[in-house]
């Protein structure tokens, strides 16, 4: 702003303006024109003159600085607020996740304990069965009784192949049951079982294996191997108490 007459201007307070403030209007509205002669009469010999453009620039810079300072202050607070909220959310999520994992570990531990109990139970049953087999063997015919039990069970199986584990488990259950019955019976006596029938059952298939085959017509691969006469003689000598040391 340039005027013909130099003007003494007192800056308005609190003119923290924004881009929308009419600084020129504010200056104009807040100042008054005083004649130099009046000033001279009042004893003012010199006055400082401010260019209106410079004033406007200074005000703009001051406002910018204040806004900038405030923006920085707001950012830090906001940041802290965000950090605080994030931390809270994170802790909540972590707690939830940890609880979930704890629950899962608990379930696994319970399953593991159950399996261990089951394993121990199976071991115990195996030991009992082995002891029973041993007892039967000592009484004579124990192995046969065992086989008969097994075969008897297999006889009742469809296909009678007894190859899968499920069938094996049933067979073992049958053996255990049989052993219990034997134990409860008079002196571990064995039941009379028709072995021929049982073995037939063991190898029976629904179609009948003998139905069609050329096995008898086809020659199996044969080979001559080194004789065993010398070996046999040495073994027999050893059995008589001879052997290499005895021979020499």
């Amino acid at each position, binding site marked *: 702003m340039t005027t013909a007459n130099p003007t003494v201007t007192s800056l308005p307070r609190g003119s923290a303006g924004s881009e929308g403030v009419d600084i020129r209007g504010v200056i104009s509205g807040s100042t008054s024109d005083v004649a130099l002669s009046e000033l001279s009469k009042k004893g003012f010999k010199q006055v400082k003159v401010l260019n209106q453009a410079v004033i406007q620039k200074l005000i703009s810079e001051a406002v910018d600085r204040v806004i900038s300072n405030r923006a920085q202050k707001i950012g830090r607070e906001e940041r802290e607020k965000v950090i605080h909220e994030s931390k809270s959310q994170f802790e909540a999520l972590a707690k939830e996740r940890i609880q979930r994992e704890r629950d899962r570990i608990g379930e696994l531990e319970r399953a593991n304990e159950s399996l261990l109990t089951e394993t121990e139970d199976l071991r115990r049953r195996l030991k009992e069965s082995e002891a029973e087999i041993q007892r039967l063997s000592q009484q004579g015919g124990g*192995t046969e009784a*065992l*086989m008969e039990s*097994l*075969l008897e069970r297999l006889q009742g199986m469809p*296909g009678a*192949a*007894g*190859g*899968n*584990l499920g069938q*094996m488990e049933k067979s073992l259950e049958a053996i255990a049951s049989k052993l219990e019955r034997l134990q409860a019976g008079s002196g571990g006596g064995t039941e009379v079982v028709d*072995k*021929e029938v049982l*073995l037939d059952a*063991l*190898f*029976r*298939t*629904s*179609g009948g*294996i003998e*139905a*069609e*085959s*050329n*096995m*008898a*017509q*086809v*020659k*199996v*691969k*044969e*080979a*001559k*191997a*080194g*004789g*065993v*006469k*010398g*070996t*046999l*003689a*040495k*073994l*027999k*000598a*050893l*059995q*008589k108490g001879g*052997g*290499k*040391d005895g021979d020499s």
Partner: protein
Amino acid sequence: MGTHEATEPKVHSASAAAAGGAKNSKLELGRGLDVGTANLASACQDVEGNVTIKLQRNAFIDIEADDYTRTMLTKLNVQYVVINGKMVVVGDPAFELANIFNREMRRPMKDGVISPKETEAMPIEKLLLENLLGTPTQPNENCYFSVPADPIDADFNVVYHKGLFSGILKKMGYNPKPLLEGHSVVFAELANDDFTGIGISCGGGMFNICVSYKSIPALSFSTSRAGDWIDRNVATVLGIKASRATAIKEKGVNILNPRNREEEAVEIYYRNLISYTLENIKRRFESASGMPTFPEPVEIVCSGGTSLVGGFIEVFKDEFDRIKFPIPVKNIRRAEDALYSVAKGCLVAALSDI
């Protein structure tokens, strides 16, 4: 084995069909039978002392059945049976067909014992045994059959397996007598050492080890990695069927000098298997309380189909030298008839027990 007098074996005439041995020859009483995961082998001896071995691959495969196939199979000397309406080719041809048609052959046994997965295993096994042994020369003839020792690296026992094969042989009219596989190797191969030493049967499903002192087994056990383990792993790394891996292994590989990628895979797994087995043997020996103290260094003899690969003994010695073996060993060698020595050992036991 009994403690009978050393008499000459009893002799009986036998027809070829009945005995499963040489035609029109007189056979001595007593049979040996190797019940192996990969192969079944029977052994008998005639009066001249000739030992005849009958060998069958312990395998089968089912194929489409029609009249033309039936006729052709018989003409081609291929054994088949019809089970549940399915035509099943058994023995060696099953292996060949599996490779031709790029299929897996089926196995009645797995890891040294009857396979729980093959529901048709038992009828097939019975047929194969009937074919190998025939009927006994006289009722209740002794038949020593091999059984694996309990494994030290797997959780199963052989009670069911042993009882099952006893049942089959009894049904066939034999007097079945189980013999530990490793022990049978001692009978067949360590006569010159007074049946003292270490017999190892390197089979398809297991390695069976027996430490024997004057024919008495001091320690017997098995390990569950063997030839099939090699096949499975080679098949996996090469992206082929296990049957094909078996064929590669059996076609004449020398593991000291692999010639291609396939043979290199075989060599790597063989070396690993031997190393694994020796480490297990060593560990078992070190932990055994009843181990005999041998007055002299002993011999280790390896038998079985898995020991037949070229360079096996050299690699075995090489791996042996890397470990501190707890028993002094004078020699490591392959059995004279590596594929038949278990059957021969069973035969020796049978002939000595009349």
